[in-house]
């Protein structure tokens, strides 16, 4: 143990002992970030009528309440439907855009790239307000279609960036080779290029799913009526009646998010 304190931490002369303060700080930051998320998990198994920590008695009643509630089930279906559709729409669009940005030799490529990733930089609430006013005119308010469109706009930058960086490490001469061997360009792309960036594409698809599934701000404005999302209902429930159902739903969402993120990490690592 004493040896460890004095062993070098990096290629420089800093020892692990000299880095202790940094490790402590890092641990604090991690705790600060993670604890609020995980405090919700024990709360969801509480028997109490109120959000209570630590719970005094344990039960699954709030999970039962969630499953038995038609409102929560409707919201869950909407959220899943919208997230899956967003993934299905955003992924191919983003892959095509990234491919075009990678191969095109025209001056406005950089401009096109910036335009595509603006939704990531503009405050979300502006996107939401914009979508709301446009959807009122187009009669898309409170529809699955409208939600999918809005969430696709938010997911596209992620797909373009993730898949675009995979194209950067792909040798485009392979596509030329495929074409010289008799493949039309689309076939060269499908049989040679796409299989080699597949992990990045899967990662991008999972991230688009999450982008939609976790999204609150836009959903607050353009979801509702017959198609409320889970996040919107949770927000309203917190405001109106605080009961531990929220904690149960949060726990379920944490599990889904963690699983999807882990998958994305695994596929992301494979694409390197």
């Amino acid at each position, binding site marked *: 143990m004493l040896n460890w304190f004095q062993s070098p931490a990096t290629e420089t002369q800093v020892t692990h002992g000299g880095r202790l303060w940094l490790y402590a700080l890092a641990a604090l930051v991690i705790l600060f970030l993670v604890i609020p998320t995980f405090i919700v998990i024990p709360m969801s198994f509480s028997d109490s009528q109120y959000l209570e920590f630590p719970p005094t008695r344990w039960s699954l009643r709030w999970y039962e309440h969630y499953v038995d509630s038609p409102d929560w089930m409707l919201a869950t279906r909407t959220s899943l439907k919208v997230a899956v559709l967003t993934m299905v729409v955003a992924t191919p669009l983003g892959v095509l855009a990234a491919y075009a940005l990678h191969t095109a030799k025209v001056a406005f490529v950089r401009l096109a790239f910036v335009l595509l990733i603006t939704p990531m930089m503009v405050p979300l609430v502006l996107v939401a307000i914009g979508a709301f006013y446009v959807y009122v005119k187009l009669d898309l308010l409170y529809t699955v279609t409208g939600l999918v469109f809005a969430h696709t706009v938010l997911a596209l930058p992620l797909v373009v960036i993730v898949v675009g960086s995979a194209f950067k490490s792909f*040798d485009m*001469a*392979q596509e*030329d*080779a*495929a*074409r*010289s*061997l*008799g*493949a*039309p*360009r689309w*076939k*060269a792309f499908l*049989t*040679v290029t796409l*299989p*080699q960036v597949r992990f990045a594409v899967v990662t991008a698809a999972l991230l688009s799913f999450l982008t939609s599934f976790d999204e609150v701000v836009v959903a607050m404005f353009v979801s509702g009526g017959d198609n409320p999302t889970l996040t919107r209902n949770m927000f309203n429930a917190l405001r109106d009646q605080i009961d531990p159902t929220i904690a149960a739903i949060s726990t379920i969402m944490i599990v889904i998010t963690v699983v999807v993120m882990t998958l994305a990490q695994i596929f992301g690592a494979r694409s390197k």
Partner: protein
Amino acid sequence: MTARQTEALPIRVSHVTKTYGSVHALDDVSLDVVSGEFLTLLGPSGSGKTTLLMVLAGFTRPDRGSLKFGDREVIRTPPHLRDVGMTFQNYALFPHMTVAGNVAYPLRLRNVPKAEITERVERALETVQLGGYGSRRIGQLSGGQRQRVALARSIVFEPRILLMDEPLSALDKKLRDQMQIELRHLHDKLGMTTVYVTHDQREALTMSDRIAVVNHGRIMQLATPRELYDRPANRFVADFIGDSTFLPVRRSGRGVAFGDMALTINGPVPEADNLLLMIRPERVTLVRDGQSVAPESNQFAATVREVVYQGDSYLLQSELVDGTLLTMRGAVRGANLSAMPTIGDRVTLNLAPDDAAVIDGSGC
């Protein structure tokens, strides 16, 4: 042999021009490649040789000009319909497929029946001496083996034209020398019209039937390796191929003169004002005391300035009367072994009339 002879096609390039901005990558290039010929495009980087190859392959669309494979005009034909085999500088193999998968790729695109694919893939692999390697992954192969797989993939569908873009540049020298001979044998066996791009003059001299020396988007000379080396058309070609010393000479009667010394030259004197005598280092000989030389050969008095021993030969740089440094390469054997010239020696250098060429020294 295992491979079939394919019926080769001639290539006719006429007046092809390609500009990028104000740069002429190809400047009104015309070139006929005879069917079954091994023709090399040789030039420095940026000369336009790769652009010309890409025009042949269909990846670059020229601004003007025509391209015919046999009787067929193909300038508007996309690459996948041109039916030419092509190998790339870094091989461009598909790492997500096995060796057999790579070689089978062009056959699968042509809907060849499965059993026939297996047979033809194996035959192509045998042709490049990789029989039995079909199930290997690309990552498991050495550079030389990758080169062979790329070659097998580009010939398996029996194209009548084969294009090669610096295929050996990534290999080390020994392997490269060996592959040059091998590629040439393969070409003779398969008989397809081959256009080969390289910047390595020795490679071009070793392999080609004819060489087109390319510079600034133009063909400077198109000739056999011998003609190119012995009778370069201009200073650029003479400079680019081999080493040489250039002596300024002037027309004198039917021959030329260097200073006030009339030279005996067997060979044409170009119609130009600015004439240079090109002297290849290995064609000059050192005249030893008491050694008799042919009376018609040219003899230069010189002072030795540098002697470099290089194992198989030695280089001698000697200063002529006008101050030009003439480089000569001598064999290390016989008298040289015991008595190499030393710096400051006054020597006589001999140049036979057949070994000198007068070239047009203007331009490049």
